[in-house]
Structures are given as structure tokens and as C-alpha cells.
């Protein structure tokens, strides 16, 4: 049953991801991209990571896709179904995609995943179709693991060693923001 749900979500993600690359109409591409991102948040929900699922929707559907739609609306031939799907940067695109794939594979290979014995996983298997957990839900206990606090501890506690990287990324984003404003600013003259 739960495997079926996973394959349904994964199927939607892969199918709409492929469609977002192959459909000729740019606007449809953006909509399929939104669907892909929403599907990925479904995967996060399936893994009981409600915080990541919310943030995925907030950032990738609510912000990134909308920016992309704004961007492509400013281009010509928007409604044209015969537009070329390839361009001159094919080589670099393939290179970047290959590098990203290698990095992702390495990261997935090296990380240790949460198994059934982990305290995180205990609540997961018993959420539905179990009278005991139903009463727990009625008593106000959330069936979903408290991922917010866990993430905060993992990222921000000094002994875990991610605090510097976290702050560094936030400074990077801030400088990107300031840079965007400088570029968008009207010429003083």
C-alpha cells in the first residue's frame, strides 16, 4: 500500500519532470516544473519530513516557478510550439548535468539513512490503520515526527559543525540579493 503511494508520487515527479524538458510551449514547461516540485514535496511528506515538504512548496512552487514564469513571459515566441528545444550551450549543459549527477550519487551513497530502529521511524509505520495510534492522534499528539526541532539541532548546534556553513549560505544569499538590487537599480544619469 505505502509502496504504491511512493511509486505513484515518484511516477508523477519523473513524468512531469520529463515533460517539463520536452514540451515545446515554454509556459507549459513552467507549469510542469511546478508539478515536479510539488511531487518532490510529496516525497518529503511520504518520508514524514513535513518541514522540508512545506519549504519545498514555499520556495520552489511559490517563488522559483513564479520567477521563471515572469522571466519567460518577457521572451518572444512564447506561444510558439515550434521553438527550438536546444541551444548553443548544449555542451556545457551536459557537462553541468553530469557533474551534478556524480555529486548527487556520491552524496546519496555516503549518507546513512534512517531505518526502522531509529526513533524517528517508530511513529512512521503505525500512523494509519492502528487503533492505538488513532487514539494517540485524537489525544492531540501529531502523527508526524517533530522534524523542525531536529533540523534546527542538526544545523545550528555548534558541536554538529554545520553552523558556520549555515551562516555562510545566508550571507551568500544576502549578497546575491544586494547584487540583484544594484543591477536592477536605475542609472543615476
Amino acid at each position: 500500500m505505502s509502496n504504491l503511494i511512493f511509486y505513484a508520487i515518484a511516477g508523477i515527479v519523473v513524468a512531469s519532470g520529463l515533460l517539463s524538458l520536452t514540451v515545446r510551449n515554454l509556459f507549459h514547461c513552467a507549469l510542469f516544473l511546478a508539478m515536479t516540485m510539488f511531487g518532490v514535496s510529496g516525497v518529503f511528506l511520504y518520508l514524514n519530513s513535513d518541514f522540508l515538504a512545506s519549504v519545498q512548496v514555499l520556495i520552489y512552487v511559490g517563488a522559483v516557478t513564479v520567477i521563471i514564469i515572469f522571466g519567460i513571459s518577457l521572451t518572444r515566441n512564447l506561444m510558439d510550439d515550434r521553438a527550438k528545444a536546444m541551444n548553443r550551450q548544449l555542451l556545457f549543459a551536459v557537462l553541468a548535468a553530469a557533474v551534478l549527477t556524480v555529486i548527487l550519487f556520491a552524496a546519496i551513497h555516503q549518507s546513512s539513512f534512517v531505518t526502522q530502529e531509529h526513533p524517528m521511524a517508530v511513529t512512521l509505520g503505525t500512523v494509519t490503520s492502528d487503533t492505538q495510534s488513532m487514539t494517540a492522534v485524537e489525544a492531540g499528539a501529531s502523527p508526524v515526527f517533530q522534524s523542525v526541532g531536529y533540523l534546527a539541532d542538526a544545523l545550528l548546534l555548534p558541536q554538529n559543525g554545520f553552523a558556520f556553513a549555515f551562516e555562510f549560505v545566508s550571507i551568500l544569499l544576502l549578497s546575491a540579493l544586494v547584487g540583484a538590487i544594484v543591477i536592477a537599480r536605475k542609472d543615476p544619469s
Partner: protein
Amino acid sequence: MLTGENIVQLVSGLLHWAYAQAGISSLAGVIDPIISAVVMFGFIAVFVMFLVWMERKVSAHMQSRIGPNRVGPLGLLQTVADAIKLTIKEDVKPVNRDKVPYFIAPIVAFVATFMGMVVIPFDKGVVVQDLNVGILYIIAITGFTVIAILTAGWSSNNKYALLGGFRSAAQIISYEVSLVLSVVPIIMITGTLSLSGIVEYQKQAGYWFILPQIVAFLIFITSATAEANRAPFDIPEAESELIGGFHTEYSGVKFAMFFLGEYIAVVVSSAVAVTLFLGGWLPLPYLDFLHIPGFVWFLAKLLLVIYLIMAFRWTFPRLRVDQLMDFGWKVLIPISIINILATAVVWFCLYGKGAQ
């Protein structure tokens, strides 16, 4: 004593007895959420009908008119008549529309706002699904309306619809920033993203957050009004300039879905405002001896905030596009950032550490 929690326990007890009789107890985990979502849908449909009537009465009162008074007592059935009219209307579609997106856009706009209602706690324990990232979930899921509006404007293949769609998207994105920033101080103080948790904190603290966070409340209400595309921030629709904006080419049931979505957006934002700033289901101070159930308090506060948002619409003139953007980016966002910093400093001085 009658409380919302007791009612929910009674109903779920009856339901589980019925499951046992029918021999489908093992499916309770699947059926229960569906039933509660359907109940929520029924509630919101009736409530929105009431709100449309209320809006017309409020506007009539402000303009020294009587408002609807022919259909049913006090004109209460006027909205029902309007709804029937909308559903049997001919569905006029532009020939050059982009068929699938044109069809999907109103559905997404409606579903996205309705999904926000799912985490609103009406009383202690009376909530469809009490997510512990509740407030983040609402902000995220209502973000879908931007895509729905852009899609509606674009797929109609009409310049007014497209202009309205883009104006609307720009406005929603801009005001979403200040909306989220105005919520941050509450999360900093309570240390939780769960809506029930925030209400419980206010119960223990003994005060509602509108007192220390009045600035955040004002920013939240203003941004929420702008997010719902309501006057004085209704430039995306602006009948006089854009003949209806993104829903120009929509009629019949599809238009009704946008209309419904707009009102549900008002309900969701008001419900979040009540939960965050007005103590949710908590009774007024010194009035808890009356033993009025929590959901009555919640609905009373909800109607008060909705009345406030309706009163805005009939009091203020519409803003210009540049004024709107200036107000959002140069006034609301700086104030909310200063509010966050001030809250952090004050709470650090008072308690010497972060939340909890």
C-alpha cells in the same frame, strides 16, 4: 460542559462504532481524514455564502442603503439565489484559449486556498489535521494561488486578463514577504510553528499577542488584505481599468471558483490572525466563567476580523500600482524587519535567552 473537543470525541466515537458495525475498522485511518475534510468543506461553503451576504449588508450600511432584503428573511437567501444563477449560467469560453491550463486554473485557485483551512484549530482539538509546521504550511500552500492566477491570466489569451494576472502575481509576491516577516516575532516568542501550540502559549502566558505585537498585527492584516486582492489593494481586478483582471474571460462555475477562492482566502487569513494575535479559541479575559464553548469565541473573533477587512474595502480608495509597490517594499517590509529585531532585543533583555 459543552466544548468543541467533546463534540469531536462524540462524533468520532459514533463513527468508529459505525465502522465496527460495517466491519471496516481497519480503514478508519483513511476514512476519518476524508470525513473531516468534507465536513470542513461543507462548513466553508455555507460560511462563504453567509460572508457574501454580510459583505453586501456591510457595504449597504456604509453607503446608507438597505442591501439585499427580498430573498428570504433579511435577504439571507440572496447568496443562494446568486449561486444557483452562477451554476446554471452558460460557460462562455474564448476560442483561442489554452485549453488545459484555462480549465485547471480556477480549480487550483480554489483548492489551494481551501487547503489552508485544514490546519486551522477551531477549538482545542477541533482541527482537521494539526500539523506541527501549521503556519508554514498555510503560507506555502496558499502560494499556489499565484500560479493559478498567472495561468488564468495567460491562458485566457486576453491582454486585460494577462495584465491583471501579472499585477496580481507581483502584488501577492511583494506582500507575502511582509506577511511572513510579521509572523516571525510570534514564532520567535512561542518557539513553535503549530497553530494550536501558539494558542496554548497565549493561554499559559495570560495575554494575547495583539498586546506586545500590535505592529505585527497591523502589518499582517494589511498584507493579508493585499494577498486576497481585496480593496484597497484590488488593482489586479480593478473593474474600471482592467474590466475584471485575470478572471475577465471566466464565467459561470469557473468564475464562481475564483470568487469562492477569494472569500476563502479572507477566511484563512482572518483565522490565522485570530489564532496568532487574538488567542484563537480562548475566551475574553474575565469572561471564562460563562463557559461559552471555545469554537463560539473563535467564530466571534473570526467574524470581527472579517468585518474589519470588509470595512477596509468600503472605506479606502484604491491604490495606484506604484503606490502599492512603494507601500509594500518601502514601508511594510522595513517596519516588519525592525519589529523582528526589536522583539529579539526586548525578549533577550527580559528573559536572557531565546524561546523556551
